[in-house]
């Protein structure tokens, strides 16, 4: 049917955020010809929004820190649902990944003796986050971007072509992972600028597309976060893991409406900011759960002393893991003690001199001044929970980042599941990107190397099907008359966001989630008629219409898994099952496409497209379990797990 | 310059604010100073009213200078020099200001319209910036900075001499002394805040931590440097006012009010 431009590469990386770029660097350094595909311009990925820092137990500020402590904190934060081997690798390798960035030109803030400074963050026992003011994500992405340029300069010196071994295809969207038999054979995508289709043939594909936040109304995520990678993997036959766990960051902006959801970094609290309700009360002291009672201050005085003397005082409860703080804010607002625009107050102005605030939180100062006309050195911010991160994702092998069930498919970063369990600690995402980005790049390169000359080919039929699917929105208007009028993709998107926010949001109930599934089914049918005007050249309506497929698939996963898990754990809070249930501790929920054979959307509303299966997690290795006190393990692990 | 691949927008700019105000005001201010200083420099008169010497004529380096007791007279130029002695010395402060990074911006924008204002198209067909003669000479700014240090030193000396009365007795002060004090403070502040100075005291270093004293100086100069534009205008005004004051007293418009 169509003549589509084809190129051959060894490794294709989908996504140019931290994980994607790190994977590409590793793959190229291991000799694989590597292509990176990203929806935005090179260097604009959502990673730039990360503010706080990169968690790595370097022990520069407190020498008591080590990987074991980091591992413990990560498991506690994830409520022991983490894929423990990932958490272990992550804690062990994060320091090297950070130091390596320095050799590529990164400039972190320094300690007095010239080492990388580290800051406190929620859920981390020691100051652990390597940072640059509150723009660490930007530093990370720029460093990786510049490292890629450095490699391209090297290639240019050798081959006369910057892009001979490492090329970034910017402003391109991948809509399908192609396979021959069971193995990955490449990707199908289009250039956003021209609308032209292309195929990159490669035996190994690394998915590093980030998260799914754009399915929710209030989110800190950018437009790119439409769950593309999750959907690509599903459609290619790979399962998604524990999709019910969506992190709502406790502090997003709540006003003005146009910026509702934009992140207010956790460093505001790490550096001394406190949360107050409309009565002026530091309410977090009332919300310390039992499992954390011994670790957090009981009085404001003790909490305040901790900033100066962390060894002899316990930390203030504002620094509890994110899920706890988000729920507490939600409860305060519901109880009528919220701020005028429906959040609570986050105050640094009475805690630090204006100069210090401007120096330590420059982008926050800037952001509130420019966007809300609020001077955070003089008044409190209004903040509320915002959809921030998805802990669930593509089920992967811990060591190799290989997606389960699809040889040649790899995943790293937010799109991969397991690492963070039911809740991610702040700072662990940037280190996750680096550790598993590198591992994915390495294993993808090795896999591609093993493929040798017997590479799977991109099948013409698949390519034609993918092209037809991508062109469908243009012909929707002239579709069958009995189907109803064409739908505006923007309207569909707004309805989807509203439904997910209201019905599968921070606090969940069974009837609402059933309602959400019905709504999703309705939207799925209407999305078939999502039509667009104009042509293929940089047409945002068309792009959104294509992204809707992904958002609908992923949203269904979230809703189905959330309905299934009848307990509250980490980022998943059920009003009708409010406690954490130890018997769920070792249960993973896997989402798979109900009908593997089909490529195009299913019209039948009731059945849905997702099938859910349960699996029991692998027992935590005993030497890792031994890092915890018995009394603590009792709170999380089921009886039979403890006696093994 | 509009090429075929750019968005087809014919207007040279789409700014709706009064973007022309700043370059126009700059050009008017600079022009006023040029007119005034040319007149005064060529006048060769009314530049000394004991104990004050006009900063335009200090140091006075020709035989035709008015004698100033203990003043900045050095007769380096003999009787063959018939022009105003101001011309000899004004080269240096003029060169300093002409090559100054702030004034460059001011006159490139105000006089040469290159560009007249941000995002407003400039009316020139070609542009080579400071890559060729004569503008490549802007790179010698630092030498004028050294000269400006000397001139500022001499003007400081003049200010000390202003603590005398008309009869050269020490320990007195008049309105003129105050004018000179303000002027010399601004001259120093402008000179020290120079970008070349910032480079020389510490900016050229790679490791501040190994040169704590120079680092402190660099920070100090940097704080002044942030005000370089304001200081450039303030000192330009003050030097003209100091000269005007001397002129008015010397030409007998009024007598210097004495404080003590």
């Amino acid at each position, binding site marked *: 049917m169509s003549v589509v431009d084809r190129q051959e590469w060894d490794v294709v990386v989908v996504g140019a955020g931290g994980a994607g770029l790190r994977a590409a660097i590793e793959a190229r350094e291991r000799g694989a010809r590597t292509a990176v595909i990203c929806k935005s311009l090179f260097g604009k990925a959502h990673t730039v929004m990360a503010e706080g820092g990169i968690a790595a137990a370097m022990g520069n500020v407190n020498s008591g820190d080590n990987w074991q402590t980091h591992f413990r904190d990560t498991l506690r934060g994830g409520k022991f649902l983490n894929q423990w081997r990932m958490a272990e690798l992550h804690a062990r390798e994060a320091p090297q990944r950070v130091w390596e960035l320095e050799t590529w030109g990164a400039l972190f803030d320094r300690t007095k003796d010239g080492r990388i400074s580290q800051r406190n963050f929620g859920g981390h026992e020691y100051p652990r986050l390597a940072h640059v003011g509150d723009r660490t994500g930007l530093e990370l992405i720029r460093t990786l971007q510049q490292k890629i340029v450095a490699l391209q300069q090297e290639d240019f010196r050798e081959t006369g072509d910057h892009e001979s071994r490492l090329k970034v295809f910017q402003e391109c969207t991948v809509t399908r992972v192609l396979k021959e038999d069971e193995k990955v054979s490449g990707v199908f995508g289009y250039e956003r600028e021209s609308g032209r289709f292309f195929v990159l043939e490669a035996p190994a594909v690394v998915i590093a597309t980030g998260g799914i936040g754009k399915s929710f109304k209030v989110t800190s995520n950018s437009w790119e976060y439409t769950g593309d990678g999750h959907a690509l993997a599903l459609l290619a036959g790979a399962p998604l893991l524990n999709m019910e766990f969506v992190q709502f960051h406790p502090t997003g902006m709540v006003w003005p409406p146009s*910026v509702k959801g934009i992140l207010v970094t956790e460093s505001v609290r790490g550096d001394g900011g406190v949360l107050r309700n409309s009565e002026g009360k530091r309410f977090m002291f009332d919300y310390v759960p039992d499992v954390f009672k011994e670790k957090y201050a009981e009085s404001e005085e003790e909490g305040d002393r901790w900033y100066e003397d962390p060894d002899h005082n316990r930390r203030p409860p504002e620094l509890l893991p994110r899920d706890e703080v988000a729920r507490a804010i939600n409860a305060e607002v519901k109880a009528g003690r919220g701020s005028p625009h429906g959040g609570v107050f986050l105050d640094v102005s009475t805690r630090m001199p204006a100069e210090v605030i401007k120096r330590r939180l420059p982008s926050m100062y800037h952001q509130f001044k420019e966007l809300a006309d609020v001077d955070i050195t003089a008044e409190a911010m209004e903040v509320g929970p915002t959809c921030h991160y998805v802990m669930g994702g593509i089920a992967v092998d811990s060591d190799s980042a290989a997606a389960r069930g699809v040889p040649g498919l790899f995943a790293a970063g937010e799109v991969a599941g397991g690492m963070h369990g039911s809740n991610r600690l702040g700072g662990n995402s940037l280190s996750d990107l680096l550790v598993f980005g590198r591992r994915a790049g390495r294993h993808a390169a090795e896999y591609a190397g093993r493929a040798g000359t017997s590479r799977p080919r991109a099948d013409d039929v698949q390519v034609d099907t993918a092209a037809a699917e991508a062109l469908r929105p243009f012909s929707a208007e002239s579709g069958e008359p009995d189907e109803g009028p064409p739908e505006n993709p923007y309207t569909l998107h707004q309805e989807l966001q509203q439904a997910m926010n209201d019905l599968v949001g921070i606090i969940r109930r069974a009837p609402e989630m059933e309602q959400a599934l019905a709504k999703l089914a309705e939207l799925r049918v209407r999305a078939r008629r999502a039509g667009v005007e104009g042509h293929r050249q940089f047409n945002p309506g068309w792009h959104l219409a294509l992204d809707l497929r992904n958002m609908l698939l992923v949203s269904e996963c979230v809703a189905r898994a959330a309905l299934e898990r009848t307990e509250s754990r980490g980022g998943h809070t059920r009003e009708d099952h409010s406690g954490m249930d130890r018997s769920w501790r070792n249960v993973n929920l896997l989402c798979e496409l109900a009908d593997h054979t089909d490529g195009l959307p299913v019209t039948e509303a009731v059945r849905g497209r997702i099938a859910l299966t349960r699996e029991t997690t692998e027992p935590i290795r005993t030497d890792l379990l031994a890092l915890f006190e018995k009394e603590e393990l009792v709170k999380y692990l089921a009886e039979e797990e403890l006696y093994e | 310059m509009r090429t075929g691949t750019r968005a087809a927008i014919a207007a040279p700019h*789409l700014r709706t604010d009064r973007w022309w105000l700043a370059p126009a005001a700059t050009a008017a201010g600079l022009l006023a100073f040029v007119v005034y200083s040319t007149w005064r420099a060529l006048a060769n008169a009314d530049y000394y009213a004991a104990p004050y010497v006009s900063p335009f004529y200090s140091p006075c380096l020709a035989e035709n200078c008015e004698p100033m007791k203990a003043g900045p007279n050095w007769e380096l130029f003999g009787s063959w020099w018939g022009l105003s002695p101001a011309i000899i010395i004004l080269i240096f402060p003029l060169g300093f200001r002409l090559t100054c990074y702030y004034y460059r911006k001011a006159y490139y924008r105000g006089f040469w319209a290159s*560009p007249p204002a941000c995002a407003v198209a400039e009316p020139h067909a070609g542009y080579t910036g400071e890559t060729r003669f004569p503008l490549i000479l802007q790179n010698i700014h630092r030498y004028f900075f050294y000269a400006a240090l000397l001139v500022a030193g001499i003007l400081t000396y003049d200010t000390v001499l202003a603590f005398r009365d008309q009869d050269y007795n020490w320990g007195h002060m008049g309105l003129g002394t105050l004018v000179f004090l303000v002027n010399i403070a601004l001259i120093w502040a402008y000179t020290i805040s120079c970008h070349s100075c910032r480079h020389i005291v510490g900016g050229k270093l790679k490791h501040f931590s190994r040169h704590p004293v120079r680092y402190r100086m660099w920070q100090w100069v940097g704080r002044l440097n942030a005000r370089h534009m304001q200081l450039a205008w303030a000192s330009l005004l003050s030097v003209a006012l100091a000269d005007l004051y001397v002129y008015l007293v010397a030409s007998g418009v009024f007598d210097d009010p004495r404080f003590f």
Partner: protein
Amino acid sequence: MSSYEARFKVWRGDVQGGGLEDFRVEVNDGEVVLDIIHRLQATQTPDLAVRWNCKAGKCGSCSAEINGRPRLLCMTRMSVFEPDETITVTPLRAFPVIRDLVTDVGFNYTKARQVPAFVPPEGVGPGEYRMMQEDVDRSQEFRKCIECFLCQDVCHVVRDHEENKPVFAGPRFLMRIAELDMHPLDAAGESGLDRARTAQDEHGLGYCNITKCCTEVCPEGIKITDNALIPMKERAADRKYDPLVWLGSKIRRRSSDRP
């Protein structure tokens, strides 16, 4: 919450041509120009092309020109305009247009490749880097850059003179050279690369006439001219235009050559 109907002129078209189109569109309290563009997309012109991403002034994607001034669409609040004002939104002028408000910023990526990368010091392994805060302060300021390319767009050297593009790196990448030249551990010098000299000889530093528009439009408030470009000009002057420094280095080299 108050809302009103604003008048907008938005440039629409592509490389073949185009022009300003008039729109009337609702504006609510607290909105920014990008919100209005999005409302246009959702209600009137679904195919209006605009590049954007984070909507929080951190990624530098939504660069355009508003009332003739280069700005980020997401950081320009509607409250800075009068309700009866007509707001004109046009694409970046210095770059080739792709469609509507989207331009081809490839120039910048080409220039980025021409600046030699950070050279790691020999014999210093990962984890062994020691740098003092005061030594990294200067380069850190430059690394705040979000690469919105507004400075590259506003700089008259290329904005008004397309023919200078091959020889001029633009403020963003001259600043990148400054960042590396001031990096306390960059070993370019040891490897025989004189960044200050190449800034002048290969990247067109001399074209800059320090008229400061780059600093004026920088959404991050980086003092590009005072802290990067002028210091680089001074460093270049050290190498190329200062006979005293030249003589000093000649003598030093001569004496160190002797056994």
